[in-house]
């Protein structure tokens, strides 16, 4: 079947690459450009840029970061954080993004999902969901980078989002994010059971082997990785080897000898 996608996730604040725990306590990691290029050269299948500040000021930084990245990085880029309108989406797509990821604005105005999907295609409209467990097999969608409750059930929300036109789900477990405790496989499974569009599991990857259960049990189509890459606990090459040994289809990639 299709290949598992290995995605490097870069959380951005202002001009910096940052990383937190549970999307909080952000630490500066360094230059987004340097890290993005390294992940591209290691064979990342895609990049996700997520603006954690989501202000207009931050978004301009983000557009510049993405635009500069397109000069030497030739893989798909998804960009999220602070996109509140079709015009915002158009602006970030013009800056070189291939897809937009939307959470807060979609919760406030679900029709935005449809408007973006109609204008740019569903493949362009990634529904970003920040999920916190609130009970047995029950998760609530959070907005504003994991800070605000929405009162909405994650499974209901992803079903509705796909009906409205979302072509992909970026599913971040706020509980696991930055903890290195592994993915929330039950959450991922609940979402992949509920919708037919691809789901990207994000949050919790502490070691390459963590992807085994999220793919086998969770049925994730892709994994987003941040902490494990930023702190150089594994390279994408190593992660791909683990995936391949487990029998998952992964992209054939040969590092260019420079």
């Amino acid at each position, binding site marked *: *079947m*299709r*290949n598992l*996608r290995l995605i490097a996730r870069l959380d951005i604040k202002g001009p910096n690459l940052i990383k937190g725990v549970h999307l909080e306590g952000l630490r500066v990691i360094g230059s987004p450009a340097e890290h993005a290029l390294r992940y*591209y050269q290691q*064979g990342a*299948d895609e990049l996700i840029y997520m603006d954690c500040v989501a202000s207009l000021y931050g978004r301009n930084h983000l557009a510049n970061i993405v*635009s500069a990245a*397109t*000069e*030497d990085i*030739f*893989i*798909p880029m998804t960009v999220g954080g602070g996109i509140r309108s079709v015009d915002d989406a158009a602006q970030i*797509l*013009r*800056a*070189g*993004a*291939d897809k937009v990821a939307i959470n807060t604005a979609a919760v406030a105005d679900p029709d935005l999902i449809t408007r973006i999907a*109609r*204008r*740019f*295609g*569903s*493949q*362009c409209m990634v529904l970003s969901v920040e999920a916190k467990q609130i009970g047995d097999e029950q998760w609530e969608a959070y907005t504003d980078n994991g800070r605000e409750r929405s009162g909405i059930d994650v499974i209901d929300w992803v079903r509705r989002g796909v009906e409205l036109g979302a*072509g*992909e789900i970026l599913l971040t477990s706020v509980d696991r994010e930055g903890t290195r405790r592994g993915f929330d496989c039950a959450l991922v499974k609940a979402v992949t059971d509920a919708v*037919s*569009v*691809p789901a990207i599991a994000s949050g919790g990857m502490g070691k390459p082997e963590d992807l085994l259960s999220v793919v086998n049990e969770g049925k994730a*189509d*892709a994994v987003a990785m941040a902490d494990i890459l930023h702190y150089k606990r594994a390279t994408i090459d190593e992660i791909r080897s683990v995936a391949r040994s487990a029998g998952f289809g992964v*992209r*054939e*990639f*040969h590092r*260019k000898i420079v």
Partner: protein
Amino acid sequence: MSTTDVVVIDYGVGNLLSVRRVLEHYGANVILTGDASEIIAGRRVVLPGVGAFPTAMQVLNEMQLPPVIREVAARGTPLLGICLGMQLLLDESEEFGTTIGLGLIPGKVRAIPGIASDGQSLKVPHIGWNGLHPAEHADWSNSLLSDIRPGEAVYFVHSFMAQPNAEHRVSDCMYGGHKVSAVVAKDNVIGCQFHPEKSGDVGLRIIKRFLKL
């Protein structure tokens, strides 16, 4: 105009910056334009596109570009359609009803079946990296893929697939047991269902080859 001039048809859809950047990576002079005379004068022409087939055709029609693109094809100018831009080259698409395409490559565009050949449900859109394989009876040696080894992977993202006549299929990928047209060609008119500008080193080699046509 230098021999590497490329016109990218700008009709308001898609990530044109990435297409421009990948062409510039090899030193091409790139113009993004919707102007008929500039398009016709292009040494090479790229028709990009993401989104829905009917919307794209509607915009092209409003800009009166279909006859311009047919003129480019008739002149023998290398013309590369990417993703939806490839699908537009065909006769028609069934996306949201039937819409007439540019008719430069015989065939139709149909939805990717939501069921794999083994009866399991199949995720649509088809998003991700997938290997390129020669279509039946196709010869790669003189095609856009001459520098690509069978099996090398490129990045796809689409819900519909082109079904050209067999003679115009250059390369397929396999998705859910279905053969999905990846590269189509008729003389100087070429289409890639995948995004060469987003396909890393493999895509770069395809673009490099396009700039030598």
